[in-house]
């Protein structure tokens, strides 16, 4: 049975939990040797990608993109953070701010594979479609 990159990553994440930097270094070196012995270093790209995702998940960290027409104030950002954290039961939300004047107003939130489109541009588009009917 072939072991998938994800399974390696899950093993690595769970063994790294609660270790200090020095122990972690040894652990990672061992892990790399294991991959090398198994001729699996070609998987390293995938493993690193997957590791980022799994580590964030185990830490309860969510990355979110926020698009808005203007720079948002901290109060709004806090609200958005709380909203996403509530939705995904995450401990921490890392927000990346993007400004796009084409939205006219409102915000678009993107987190994991979900999109919340609360922009004025989208509402206008929906109104246009409704009027056409």
């Amino acid at each position, binding site marked *: 049975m072939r072991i998938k990159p994800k399974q390696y990553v899950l093993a690595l994440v769970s063994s790294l939990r609660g270790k200090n930097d020095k122990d972690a270094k040894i652990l990672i070196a061992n892990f790399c040797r294991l991959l090398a012995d198994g001729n699996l270093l070609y998987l390293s790209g995938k493993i690193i990608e997957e590791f980022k995702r799994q580590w964030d998940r185990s830490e309860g960290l969510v990355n979110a993109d926020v698009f808005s027409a203007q720079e948002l104030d901290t109060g709004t950002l806090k609200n958005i953070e709380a909203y996403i954290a509530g939705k995904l039961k995450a401990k921490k939300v890392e927000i990346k701010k993007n400004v796009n004047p084409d939205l006219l107003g409102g915000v678009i939130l993107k987190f*994991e*594979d*979900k*999109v*919340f*489109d*609360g922009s004025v541009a989208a509402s206008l588009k929906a*109104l246009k479609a*409704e*009027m056409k009917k």
Partner: protein
Amino acid sequence: MSNTKDFIVEELKKQISGFQAEAKIETVGKVISVGDGIARISGLSDCMMSEMVEFKTAKSSVFGVVLNLEEDSVGVVILGSFEDVKEGDEVLTTKRILEVPVGKEVVGRVLNPLGEALDGQGELGCDKFYPIEKIAPGVIARKSVNQPVQTGIKAIDSMIPIGRGQRELIIGDRQIGKTAIAVDTIINQKGQNMKCIYVAIGQKKSKIANIVGRLKEAGAMEYTTVVLAGASDPASLTYIAPYAGCAMAEYFLDKGEDVLIVYDDLSKHAVAYREISLLLRRPPGREAYPGDVFYLHSRLLERACKLSPEFGGGSITALPIIETQAGDVSAYIPTNVISITDGQIYLEPDLFNQGQRPAVNAGLSVSRVGSAAQTKAMKKVAGKMRLEAAQFRELAAFAQFGSDLDEETKRKLERGKRIMEIFKQGQYAPVSVAKQVVVFYGLINGMLDDVPVEKISEFESGLHFYADTNSESLLNLIVEKNELNDDIEAGIKELFKDYKNTLDYIKK
């Protein structure tokens, strides 16, 4: 004038204030890879099997249907043109299982498998949708067949009768008249209280244009729907076409109506499914078909049924068509479909080349349940004829060796030749049940024995004409009574006698 202006402005204001743009969370995936009509998509964590998904391409949006749910990706077939779909495009879930518009609006139309009009007669305007995949009715809801489907083809109505709710396979090589049988059957359903659906799967569009033209000419488009997945359409549309056609049929079934559905042909359907399966990297099996190719057809044909009166009493009669390669009925798909259906009509190249058309091989063709649905009159005459036809086949091979035959054998051979001659029938020329009964009655009672074999077809068409003009009441009586009583038998004998008197080539 100003009144109307104010009114319009007010109405606009009302509409806009009443409009509430609802922002809701949507699930979005990204296209990882795309090729040959198949896309692999990441994300879409909560998407369902056979759910419709929407690809947001740069130009427009196109729909796809989910066929594979994997650990970290989703396999989707794209329904339509996939040229615009690029890697990284957004894909939205729709929370709708793939469905087609149904309703009486589809009658008389030519549609693609998604229910979009192809005949240039505008949109359908159906407000009802049925999912294309549905579990077939169960044991309790069903009833055995008890009403005939009149194909109007003498060889079939007499020897291989089809009942409403039956699944009868039409199988044979290319260019042998499989579609002709199906189209003739559709034409003959006029006034029989039957809706027809012709599903063209991977067919040439020129051929379909031809068929639609023929159906229109015969007035058959009034009760017929054509679902077309052409040879140039992607495999995904070819794959869903029969299911879409069946969903449209189920609408009428639920209303308690009788439907005839022709799948032309399921070999191409299996090929399209093989293409999709291989592109989705499902493991290939025999002839490179995937492991579930049996289920592919069994779940489709199982939806043909006759419902009991408590469940509406409707029926779906299915006529699937299979094309064989060089008469090989033991290939994978033909054996599968033969075992699923309630019998088959086997068309043979040798018979076709001998001029026996329709080239129905009476020995290999069977109808496992249809005889229960035959009318009494037909059952009475056809039973004896089937026996005589079988005896003739046996003797014909044997008689080639010797010329010295006893009287009985000679008589059987002569009778058999006339039966074979009677079974010959032109295309688009269905014969009504009553006329079939008259001819068959005459045949088995020796009234055609004095007609030369080469004159049989002339004699028969003359007889039909004579019966139409002189004894319409007799034909009506046969249909009405549905059985042969003494009066009818005497009437038929009388008809033959009178008709023969008008002919000069019969020795008196």
